[in-house]
C-alpha cells in the first residue's frame, strides 16, 4: 500500500485504515445497530475530510472520529424513528457523550468490542458467504466493490448479500457478544474457517487478477494476527496464522515470469520471504506450546517441514506422513487421505503409497477427484508402471478445469511418453 504522507487528507486515510474497525466496533455496541453505526462512522470520516484541513489534525485522531461518530449517531437517531428502543439508546449515547474522560480500561473495552464484532460477523446463523463479506467489510474495511471484485460477483449482488446479513442481525436479534466458554470452541472454529476461506480465495491461482488476490491474502493475515492478539491462549488461532504466513511467504515463487504455475519442488527458494517464514515458525512454536493440537496447527507443521528443507530432496517426508496421519484422524477427509498416501509414497516408497491409495480409488464418490488421479499417476510412474501412469494422467487431465494445472499435468504426461 502507498505511504499516505503527512497532510490532513493523508491523516484521515491513515485513521480510516488503522482505526475504522475499532471505532465501528465500539459504536455498534453503543448504538446496538449495525447499519446506523456504519452510517455514523462514514459521516464522521467525511466530516474529518472537511474540517481537518481547516482546523488542523487533532492530537488523537482516532478519539476524534469516535466522538464525532457518536454525535452523528445521536443526530441520526433523533431523526430516524425506525430503530427499536430508540429512547433508551439515545439516553445511553448522550450519557456517554457527556462523560469527559473515558474510563481507564478503554484498551480492554476496545479489544472486547473488536472480538464481539468478529463473532457477530461470523455468526453461524448467517450464510457463510455473508460471513466472509461482512467480516471483510466491517473488520477489514474493504469496500463492497472490492469484495465483489475479489469474489467475482457483481457489486449489487454483493451489496444485497451484505444488507441482508445486517438486516438479519437486527431482525433476529443476533446479539453482539463473545460466546460463552462452553460455545467458544465451536464458534471460534467458525471464525477461523472464515479467515482461512478469505486467505484461500486470495491464494488460489484459479481466478481474479493477482493484485486483488494478494490484498485478500494480506487481509486474511491481518485478521489472523488480530485474532492472536485478542485470543492469545487459543493455539488454533496461532496455528492458522502460522499456516497462512508459511504459504504466503512463497507467493512470489509460485508463478513463473510468464504467469505459469511453479510447483513446490521447482520453486526458486531464494524468492521465499524469509521474514514471513520466521514469523510463521514463531507462531507455530507459540501454538504447540499449549499442547492442544488442532487441524491448523498440524497443517502449519506440515508446511513448516516443507519450507525448512534446504532443497526438495531434504524434505522430512517421514514426519510429514505422520502429521497427515494425525490430521486424517482429527478431521477425516479424502483430501487429507490422498496427501497422506503421497507423503507415505515419498517416505517409504511408491508401493507403500499405492497401498494407501487403493481403497480411495475403489470409492465411487471419489471417481471425479482430480488430485487422487494425479497422485495415482505419480506413484505408478515411480513404481515403473508407465502405461498405468499414462492412463491415470489422462484421467486427471480430463478432470482439470484449471488451465495452469492442466498444462502441468500434460507436461508430466509428455515427459513420461518421451522417456526411453
Amino acid at each position: 500500500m502507498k505511504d499516505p504522507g503527512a497532510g490532513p487528507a493523508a491523516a484521515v486515510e491513515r485513521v480510516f485504515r488503522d482505526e475504522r474497525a475499532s471505532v465501528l466496533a465500539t459504536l455498534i455496541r453503543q448504538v446496538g445497530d449495525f447499519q446506523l453505526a456504519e452510517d455514523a462512522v462514514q459521516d464522521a470520516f467525511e466530516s474529518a475530510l472537511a474540517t481537518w484541513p481547516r482546523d488542523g489534525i487533532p492530537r488523537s485522531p482516532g478519539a476524534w472520529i469516535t466522538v464525532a461518530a457518536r454525535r452523528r449517531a445521536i443526530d441520526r437517531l433523533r431523526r430516524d424513528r425506525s430503530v427499536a428502543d430508540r429512547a433508551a439508546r439515545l439516553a445511553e449515547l448522550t450519557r456517554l457523550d457527556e462523560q469527559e474522560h473515558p474510563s481507564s480500561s478503554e484498551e480492554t473495552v476496545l479489544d472486547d468490542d473488536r472480538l464481539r464484532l468478529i463473532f457477530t460477523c461470523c455468526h453461524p446463523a448467517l450464510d457463510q458467504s455473508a460471513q466472509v463479506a461482512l467480516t471483510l467489510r466491517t473488520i477489514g474495511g474493504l469496500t463492497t466493490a472490492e469484495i465483489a471484485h475479489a469474489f467475482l460477483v457483481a457489486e449489487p449482488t454483493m451489496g444485497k448479500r451484505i444488507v441482508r446479513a445486517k438486516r438479519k442481525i437486527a431482525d433476529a436479534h443476533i446479539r453482539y457478544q463473545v460466546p460463552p466458554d462452553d460455545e467458544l470452541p465451536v464458534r471460534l472454529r467458525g471464525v477461523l474457517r472464515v479467515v482461512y476461506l478469505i486467505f484461500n480465495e486470495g491464494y488460489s491461482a484459479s481466478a481474479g487478477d493477482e493484485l486483488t488476490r494478494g490484498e485478500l491474502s494480506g487481509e486474511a493475515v491481518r485478521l489472523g494476527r488480530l485474532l492472536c492478539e485478542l485470543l492469545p491462549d487459543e493455539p488454533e488461532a496461532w496455528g492458522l496464522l502460522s499456516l497462512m504466513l508459511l504459504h504466503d511467504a512463497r507467493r512470489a515463487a509460485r508463478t513463473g515470469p510468464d504467469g505459469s504455475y511453479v510447483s513446490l519442488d521447482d520453486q526458486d527458494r531464494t524468492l521465499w520471504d524469509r521474514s514471513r517464514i520466521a514469523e510463521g515458525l514463531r507462531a507455530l512454536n507459540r501454538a504447540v506450546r499449549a499442547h492442544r493440537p488442532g487441524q491448523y496447527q498440524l497443517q502449519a507443521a506440515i508446511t513448516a517441514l516443507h519450507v525448512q528443507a534446504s532443497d526438495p530432496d531434504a524434505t522430512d517426508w517421514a514426519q510429514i506422513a505422520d502429521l497427515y496421519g494425525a490430521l486424517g484422524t482429527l478431521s477425516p477427509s479424502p483430501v487429507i487421505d490422498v496427501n497422506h498416501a503421497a507423503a507415505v509414497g515419498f517416505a517409504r516408497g511408491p508401493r507403500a503409497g499405492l497401498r494407501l491409495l487403493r481403497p480411495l480409488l475403489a470409492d465411487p464418490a471419489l471417481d471425479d477427484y482430480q488430485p487422487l488421479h494425479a497422485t495415482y499417476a505419480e506413484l505408478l510412474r515411480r513404481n515403473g508402471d508407465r502405461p498405468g501412469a499414462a492412463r491415470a494422467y489422462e484421467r486427471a487431465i480430463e478432470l482439470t478445469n484449471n488451465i495452469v494445472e492442466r498444462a502441468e499435468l500434460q507436461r508430466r504426461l509428455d515427459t513420461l511418453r518421451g522417456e526411453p
Partner: protein
Amino acid sequence: MPQYMALLYAEEGEQGDREQRWAEMPLWLELTEGLRKAGLLVSNGALHPPGSATTVRVRGGEAEITDGPFAVTKEVLAGYYVLECADLDEALRLAAQFPTARYGSVEVRPIVDPASYGQM
C-alpha cells in the same frame, strides 16, 4: 424481549415412528413445563396432520376453498412454540432441545415487535 416462533417440521412417518414419538410425550411435557416456569413460553401447540388442512384463498372477492395444505412437502409443519428469549442464540439453544430437531428440523423465526409497526 424479542419473541421467536419455533416451527417444528417432521416427516409424517410410518406407524412405528409414530409410536416412538408418542413415547416421547413425557419429554415434551417436561420441556414445555420447564419453558413455562422459566417465563420463556408464550404459547405452543401441536398440529393435526396436513391431511386435515384446508386452504383458503380470496380471489376476485370470492373465497376459494381447497382441501389440503398450502404446499405439499416431505417434512410437514407438526407444531410450534412461541418463545420469549434474550436473543437468537438463546432461541437456537432451546430449539435444539426439541425432539423434532433430532429427526426433523426446527425453523426459528423472529416475530415482528408490534411496537415497530408503521416503521418498517
